[in-house]
């Protein structure tokens, strides 16, 4: 099986990685780069625990080959905060008590970040729809939805 050498940007940093053809982006992040914040919950594109941003768009990293990501710009949960300052979605999810076991949290944060990047003022329905691919078994989702709403209004406030 061929090994491919790829270069890509991860959390703002340039990376060069050797990946076998059948290695997923998720495996590459966790096993080659020790970025274990992104989680494996089902390896089938159903649970969303592996969600990362690829060129700004949320994607299940278990459903894309690493080799397909050559030249891409990846953001994982480790890359959401900047200079030690939490992203609004991270801040609000804490404040709303919307973190319990924390396993779904990285994927939720990425999906929320992606949503607010493309839709800065989402309705509750739009938030629920954007998160439908992120399964959570602990929180019951309501606080997560509130947290995303709150993050949206905080971002709006920062702009005005």
């Amino acid at each position, binding site marked *: 099986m061929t090994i491919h050498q790829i270069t890509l940007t991860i959390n703002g940093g340039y990376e060069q990685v050797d990946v076998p053809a059948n290695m*997923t982006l998720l495996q590459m992040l966790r096993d080659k780069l020790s970025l274990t914040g992104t989680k494996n919950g089902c390896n*089938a594109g159903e649970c969303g625990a592996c969600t990362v941003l690829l060129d700004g768009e949320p994607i299940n990293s278990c459903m894309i080959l690493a080799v397909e990501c050559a030249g891409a710009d990846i953001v994982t949960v480790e890359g959401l905060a900047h200079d030690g300052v939490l992203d609004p979605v991270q801040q609000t999810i804490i404040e709303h008590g919307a973190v319990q076991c924390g396993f779904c949290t990285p994927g939720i944060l990425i999906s929320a970040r992606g949503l607010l990047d493309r839709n800065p003022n989402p309705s509750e329905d739009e938030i629920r729809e954007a998160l*439908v691919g992120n399964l959570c078994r602990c929180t019951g989702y309501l606080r997560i939805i509130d947290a995303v709403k709150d993050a949206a209004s905080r971002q709006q406030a920062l702009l005005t």
Partner: protein
Amino acid sequence: MTINAHPELPAFDYIRPASLMEASRFLAQHTGDARPLLGGTDIFVRMRDGIWHDHYLVDVKRLDGSGELYFDPTAGLTIGAGVNMNRVVASPDVQQHYPLLAEACRSVASYQLRTRATIAGNICNASPAGDTIGACLVLEATLMVHGIDGFRQVPLSGFFLGPGKTVLQPGDIVTTIHFPPPPKSHAGMYIKLGRNQKSDLSIVGVTVYGFPDSKAASGYRFRIALASVAPVPLVVTAAEDYLAGNAIQPTAFKGAARLAQEACNPIDDVRGSARYRKAMVQRLTEKALAITWDQMTKRE
């Protein structure tokens, strides 16, 4: 096998052909051992489940035309095979001229999966549950296919032979999907009945499309396609003909819905029983027809 799912993908080679002809030739040469790769949402699941064991995945997302999405009022809509469903949903042209297609795409899985999933992949996977297939059928899509003998056009009707089976031959790659310009005052909807509120596979899916047509005796033409109730995505020509030939009134929708129910042939499976599916086909077809009619007559 007791356990089907493997922890990871089996070994394979990733091929990135430089041209469509290179891709078609490679696929033809490795028939049964090579597969075109678009979004991978079906391929990776089946490979991890041990159903497909191809040694070559041939990435066809970045070949000529596969990334394009454009609309021309006289020519219609062209969507490249590599265009992901989110792009289709977000396209202003699609929203304005083919809202049914956007609605169908939007019903698929989740936002993350739609960043990968493609309409072409949905079509080629040929699952009777394919959410976007009904819309493509009623919108009269044609596929541009590149094979070892070059390009040819394939209408979507007649494309499906059985679950997972299509008319495509070894070496064939779908490059673009083309939709004719929409008729005036068209309307349509896709009712997807899943177990959850959103994101499930359909237990039953009903796609309805309608537009005024002076060539029809009733003055209107409806197209009806059903998902998950037959071995293939099912176009209910009997119901379509009935509505074309009879004056449009609420009883006509009831009649058409009954024909849809008679035409479908669902099975009992983990998702639902045949009895329930038949009942839902009737009710949801009637509902979709009524709503579509309502929207259509408002636009006339």
